[in-house]
């Protein structure tokens, strides 16, 4: 994943929109985005498609597509299912 840089916002309307997001909302969004990106890159590395992931997890392709859409809220149950299907840790918890 590319390193994030500072955003210059020229529109006061958009500045206000960005400012309306709480730190908790942004943190939750970022966490879900990182999980989604980790799954995407794991599939790329393994030469697998979303269809393969659907087959391995026993989920419909439409549901798997939602995992890659912005703002999807992953549950621990879903993450565990994906980890087992791909045999890769998607998230690790600090000890």
């Amino acid at each position, binding site marked *: *994943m*590319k390193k*994030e*840089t*500072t*955003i*210059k*916002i*020229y*529109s006061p*309307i*958009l500045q*206000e*929109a*960005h400012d*309306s*997001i709480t730190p908790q*909302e*942004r943190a939750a*969004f*970022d966490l879900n*985005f990182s999980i989604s990106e980790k799954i*995407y890159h794991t599939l790329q590395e393994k030469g697998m498609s979303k269809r393969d992931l659907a087959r391995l997890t026993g989920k419909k392709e439409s549901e798997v597509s*939602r995992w*890659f*859409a*912005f*703002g*999807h*809220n992953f549950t621990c149950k879903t993450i565990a299912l994906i980890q087992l299907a791909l045999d890769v840790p998607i998230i690790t918890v600090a000890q």
Partner: protein
Amino acid sequence: MLNMSQKNIIFAANLRYTLMKEARLKTLEQTDNVSLYSICFDGKAVSEYEAFVQKFKDDATLNTDYKKIILAIEKIVAVGAFERFFRPEGKISDHVAALSIDSRKLRLYCLRISDQILIVGNGGIKDTQTYEESTELSGYVMDLQAFDKMLAEAQKDGSVTIEKNVITGIEGKVFQLS
């Protein structure tokens, strides 16, 4: 074969497009890697994306979906406008795409020019199966398709150039709708 209702929707969308005469490109956000633009039609100071933001910012029932869109655009400007972040809409030959968000209610349409340049349009509530069935949404898609054509023509005649994350030649430029 189109039914009467579909014909009316296309007529209304075409009428909206015909009534518009000119457009300008406005820079909204920028990083070293990505630039975000939007379109101002007919001398309006507020761009299409800003109009979308103003339309939904105080809508309590759509607040969650609205915030997903704001955060998604923020993320794209930070990391890149990658193809996987969008769903193709419009025609194969154009750059029109819908932002891929986990929402059954809201849609936002864009022109994904490259990984480094995104032109955001307008959007609205998705209450039909396809955008073609909605007068409002098909109007936004047609706006973007029309602008996409004008941008391609401006690149061809050399008045506008696109390099990396910058579109040059847009300062004061008015794109005439033909």
